[in-house]
């Protein structure tokens, strides 16, 4: 780890000013991703601006019946927050499917959105990686790519965005409130993370110097019919091979509205509004769910080791939709997949 200067921000304005002064500076919140990457010399900030003590740790009701989650709310506090458990159980479930209780106690809402890929080529500075060192090539394309993306890839990068929480935020249509040198703005969740294209070094559409201050949930929480199904190499404490978040509105056996997002398959949480539209108005049965899965995976492409993910994703989508429709969401402690 290279040495750095440590400063503690006293307010949002202080934090934004401190980072504007120094392009090589970085915010640190829970530290669970940044400090790990600094130990690997993947991240080399010369200044750390500690935002962990800012008063951004509240979960508040909004006027429109939603929730506003401060950027420093810890993942564990959010997962067990009574309003989240009652009104947005798919979010609670997705958070509990990720990392460990120790890490969730540290990890922040803002930091979770900005965690970087777990691609082994990104993590090892001796290997090529266009995301870490633009122009050096993608080691995973013809290398070990079992964990890698099957949707939205480019010739420059096939890394996946690893967050579980963000899959739920994508299907809930969260909004990200940011503050920066040019003032405050709000970014729709779907427009927050990026596909790799020719610029995989950019994970998201935050501008330099911008800070996440809150994440806002609209009122629709899909609390009756939801599921978060995460498939991984061991039953717990592992990143997703494929995960599926579902929220349905069902009346008289028919789907009125559907939300569907996948994790572990792309450079961003993968939401497919065409598949959602195809579900709307249909009876909730397996043939309909299979059709939706086929739409999601219409352009899926494997790179060798990860070819199995395409069929795995198809089955996981059908299973998660079934769980949601039946009102029997995947348990995050009893790992039997019902």
């Amino acid at each position: 780890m290279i040495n750095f200067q440590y400063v503690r921000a006293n307010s949002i304005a202080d934090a934004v000013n401190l980072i504007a002064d120094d392009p090589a500076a970085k915010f640190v919140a829970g530290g669970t991703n940044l400090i790990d990457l600094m130990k690997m010399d993947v991240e080399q900030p010369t200044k750390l601006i500690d935002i962990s003590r800012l008063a951004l740790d509240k979960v508040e009701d909004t006027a429109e019946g939603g929730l506003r989650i401060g950027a420093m709310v810890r993942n564990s506090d959010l997962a067990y927050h009574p309003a989240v458990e009652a009104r947005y159980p798919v979010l609670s479930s997705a958070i509990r499917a990720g990392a460990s209780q120790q890490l969730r106690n540290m990890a922040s809402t803002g930091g979770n959105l900005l965690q970087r890929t777990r691609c082994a080529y990104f993590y090892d500075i001796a290997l090529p990686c266009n995301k870490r060192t633009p122009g050096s090539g993608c080691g995973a394309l013809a290398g070990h790519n079992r964990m890698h993306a099957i949707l939205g890839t480019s010739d420059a990068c096939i890394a996946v965005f690893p967050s579980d929480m963000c899959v739920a935020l994508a299907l809930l249509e969260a909004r990200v409130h940011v503050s920066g040198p040019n003032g405050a703005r709000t970014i729709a969740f779907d427009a927050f993370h990026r596909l790799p294209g020719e610029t995989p070094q950019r994970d998201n559409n935050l501008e330099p110097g911008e800070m996440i201050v809150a994440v806002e949930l609209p009122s629709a929480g899909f609390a009756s019919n939801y599921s978060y199904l995460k498939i991984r190499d061991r039953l717990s404490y592992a990143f997703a091979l494929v995960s599926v978040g579902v929220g349905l509105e069902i009346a008289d056996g028919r789907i009125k509205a559907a939300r569907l997002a996948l994790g572990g398959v792309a450079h961003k949480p993968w939401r497919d509004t065409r598949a959602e539209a195809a579900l709307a108005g249909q009876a909730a049965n397996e043939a309909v769910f299979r059709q939706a899965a086929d739409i999601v995976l219409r352009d899926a492409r494997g790179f060798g080791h990860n070819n199995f993910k395409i069929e795995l994703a198809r089955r996981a989508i059908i299973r998660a939709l079934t769980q949601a429709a039946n009102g029997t969401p995947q348990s995050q402690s009893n790992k039997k997949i019902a």
Partner: protein
Amino acid sequence: MQQRNQPAGRADGASGTVSVNLTVNGTRHSLTLDPRTSLLDLLREHLDLTGSKKGCDHGQCGACTVLLDGRRVVSCLTLAVMQDGANVTTVEGLAKDGHLHPLQQAFIDHDAFQCGYCTPGQLCSGVALIAEGHAKTADEIRELMSGNICRCGAYTNILAAIQQAMRQS
């Protein structure tokens, strides 16, 4: 010493070190540190509290688990300077007045370790799990203890030990 005319936490520009005050197992410490020092290295290298173990140094094993202001965290992924003012409990601080913590006694009763390397982390994690109150069933305990890896595979006995301590609490 911290310079009063600077906001808390600003590094001392001249030497590049930072001053950190924290309480560990009830004892207050004032230290001057390289800002890169993790909380784990502070405990092991500066305070000689070698109970907390360095298994992976990357948040992947749980051997370094301590209680930070009562909550379990992995001490390898936080900087000591970020925890200025905090209250830390390590495995060395679990026993009180010469009596083992009930979970420590339960680990002995159930033979919940072989090599013992993961045990300090398991103990701190288990103490926090019981205090959190989210885990009731065996499945829930297993899931919420999954951040602590045991290479010796003592999981069955660790679960039994936690269940015993839970009944006692």
